[in-house]
């Protein structure tokens, strides 16, 4: 049943597959994020309590949700890589971590900029914010481990183990708003089936969310190709690929 997956364990096949995905993700990103940007900045009504600072929601919430999804994805890949010794798994983890770090940073910064007018403080050491900050450090740790070994497979293994240890942080972030008292509000959009939002505010959220998802697909595919190339530099197919791109 899963046999169709087998060819993708070959780095050359995966490399070309990722290359085919890039233009789709790229143009969808440009389309969705530009629609979302105009919609959110010009047409979405201001919140009756928070006023226009509510517009930050459309960046803050998608990036925060995705920072968790990216980490979970990375952890599943790291686990498979450790168990089945897949070399491509290391390349994927190395490709995903920097993107996750950027999304976490965006979630933290926009959260601070939203917190100042809404709560009156830029930062507070409560459960949600602190655990999200730890997530950023986990991403940075994974990036650092990947680049601090001269043997790439050694570094990949260390980074994968750190990724798996850090998984404990994910449920803590997700449920922190329920387990502890905090300034941070509870979940609004991830309540399945019944988001507690007006639909004129919910639709632009979906557009932005999928815009960010496509952005992830685009950049992760691009970085994955780079990682595969650098890990297979001695193979003949890589040489011909590098030559071709030089001629362009």
């Amino acid at each position, binding site marked *: 049943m899963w046999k169709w997956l087998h060819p993708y364990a070959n780095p050359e096949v995966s490399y070309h597959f990722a290359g085919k995905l890039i233009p789709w993700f790229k143009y969808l990103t440009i389309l969705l994020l530009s629609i979302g*940007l105009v919609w959110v900045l010009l*047409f979405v009504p201001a919140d009756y309590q928070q006023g226009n*600072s509510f517009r930050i929601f459309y960046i803050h919430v998608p990036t925060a949700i995705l920072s968790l999804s990216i980490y979970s994805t990375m952890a599943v890949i790291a686990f498979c890589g450790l168990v089945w010794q897949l070399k491509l798994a290391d390349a994927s983890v190395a490709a995903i971590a920097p993107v996750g770090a*950027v999304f976490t940073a965006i979630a933290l910064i926009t959260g601070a900029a*939203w917190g100042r007018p809404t709560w009156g403080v830029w930062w507070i050491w409560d459960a949600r914010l602190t655990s999200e900050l730890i997530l950023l450090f986990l991403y940075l740790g994974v990036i650092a481990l990947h680049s601090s070994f001269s043997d790439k497979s050694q570094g990949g293994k260390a980074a994968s183990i750190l990724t798996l240890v850090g998984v404990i942080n994910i449920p803590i972030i997700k449920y922190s708003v329920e387990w502890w008292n905090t300034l941070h509000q509870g979940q609004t959009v991830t309540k399945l089936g019944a988001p507690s939002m007006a639909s004129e505010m919910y639709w632009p959220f979906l557009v932005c969310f999928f815009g960010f998802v496509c952005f992830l697909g685009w950049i992760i595919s*691009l970085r994955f190709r780079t990682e595969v*190339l650098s890990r297979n*530099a001695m193979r003949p197919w890589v040489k011909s690929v590098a*030559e071709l791109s030089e001629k362009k």
Partner: protein
Amino acid sequence: MQFTNLNDFLAMGTHGFYVWLSFGITFALLFALIYSSKRKNKQVKNAIIKRQLREKKLKKAAQLQKESISTSKSKEVSS
């Protein structure tokens, strides 16, 4: 349209600073990520090409050396 003129739009009620700070930093970070990903891709490709050229050079030099050794040997034999 929620705003009647440009000043209103830039002011965002009283929250202009926070809104533009968020959107500005977000898109600056996204573009920085795009740029660095593309640059790294190019660097890796260039490094591969460079190494390839060096290998070719080394191979050629080795071959030349081999040839010169064999020709000098044959000269010795003939003399």
